[in-house]
């Protein structure tokens, strides 16, 4: 079992993703490819952890508990065959892994239930409070602040405030609607929700917050790109500024101010000076890499099972 190599590969993948993707030029040029890259990194890490976890939990045929591959300390303790002490520690470790896995699953389930309840309440509120607008193809909420969003569900609802309708010209509104429809067509809510639930399932880690922010950033860039196919970037830019700035003094929720200004500025610059699209060969190369990396853990397992002599020289100890 090449547990250490797999975990090392997962760690390196995660490190490269977190260090490189947020600043990459190619991600800025092709946000959809960037989203795929993030997901490839996430699935690689998850697969590696799950595979190693299974290896630790399942009884193995080899004399040494697989946990010894992960905990290199017992490498020496096994000069002959594993003693009672090693076995006890191995079982304890397996118990800890099972406990951690179970905790994550419970947290994910709870977070999912809370989200579903919250969204159901929000949907009911929308039905009661909003006014359907057939020409717009969505629901209007009477509110002075300009805002527009899509609400996920069996029928994705476009929601626009009266403040937005007042501030935007017809073409600007059409551009905003196109942007929101791009979110629906691209299933961006699912992409975002998956990462969010993963973050909530795991113990609090700054890196997972970063990943969620990056997915949110890329999803907006992608929707801008899609909307720009049918509407001018100038209209999108005007709409962006009109929607992000308030006409007068109003309530700004405290938690909204942090971290969103940078995104709006980046989007504006990107709309006004769009980056050159990636060359076909570059896109192909990145796509192939992104598709291949999540397969590595499976390849390692296959090698382990099919070619024991080979794996004997690539394992540690």
């Amino acid at each position, binding site marked *: 079992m090449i547990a250490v190599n797999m975990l090392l590969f997962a760690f390196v993948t995660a490190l490269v993703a977190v260090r490189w993707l947020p600043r990459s030029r190619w991600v800025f040029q092709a946000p959809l490819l960037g989203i795929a890259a993030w997901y490839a990194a996430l699935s690689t890490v998850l697969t590696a952890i799950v595979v190693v976890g299974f290896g630790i939990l399942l009884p193995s045929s080899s004399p040494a508990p697989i946990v010894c591959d992960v905990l290199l300390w017992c490498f020496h303790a096994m000069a002959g065959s594993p003693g009672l002490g090693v076995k006890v520690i191995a079982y304890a470790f397996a118990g800890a892994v099972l406990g951690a896995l179970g905790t994550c699953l419970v947290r994910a389930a709870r977070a999912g239930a809370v989200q579903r309840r919250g969204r159901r309440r929000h949907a009911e509120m929308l039905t009661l409070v909003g006014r359907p607008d057939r020409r717009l193809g969505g629901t209007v909420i009477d509110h002075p602040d300009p805002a527009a*969003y899509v609400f996920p569900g069996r029928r994705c609802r476009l929601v626009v405030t009266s403040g937005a309708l007042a501030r935007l010209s017809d073409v600007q509104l059409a551009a905003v609607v196109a942007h929101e429809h791009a979110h629906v067509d691209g299933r961006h809510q699912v992409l975002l929700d998956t990462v969010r639930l993963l973050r909530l399932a795991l113990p609090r880690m700054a890196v997972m917050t970063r990943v969620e922010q990056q997915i949110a950033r890329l999803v907006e860039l992608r929707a801008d790109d899609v909307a720009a196919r049918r509407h001018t970037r100038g209209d999108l830019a005007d709409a962006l500024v009109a929607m992000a*700035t308030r006409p007068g003094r109003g309530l700004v929720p405290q938690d909204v101010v942090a971290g969103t200004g940078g995104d709006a500025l980046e989007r504006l610059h990107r709309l006004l000076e769009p980056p050159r699209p990636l060359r076909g060969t570059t896109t192909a190369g990145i796509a192939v890499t992104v598709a291949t990396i999540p397969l590595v853990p499976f390849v390692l397992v296959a090698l382990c099972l099919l070619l024991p002599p080979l794996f004997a020289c690539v394992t540690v100890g």
Partner: protein
Amino acid sequence: MRGFGELEAAVMDRLWAREAPTSVREVWEGLQERDLAYNTVLTVIDNLYKKGWLARERHGRAFLYAPVASRSDYGAQLMREAMAESGDPAAALLGFVNQLSEEEGEALRKALRSARRREPR
């Protein structure tokens, strides 16, 4: 089980329009053009009360119902939920753009103005 819908919205409309605690009968009378049974309206109002959208007070033998909050209060809450970041159950909805602070908004406007000035047309 019927989904939450248009009838509930119509009932809330009437109750908001009334601006005073209202009986089921008065709501039913206001919805005459829909040709609804009294019991239907009663069920809807009772459900809305059970779900926390309405408050009620006894008035003789009947109950009078009123919305718990105004329409604009709920509108503001919807905006907060849609636009707020993590921590909120309905959070992470895909809005067009979040509202910025005064300084960030000014920076955004300035960026747009200088870009427009650079354009030849």
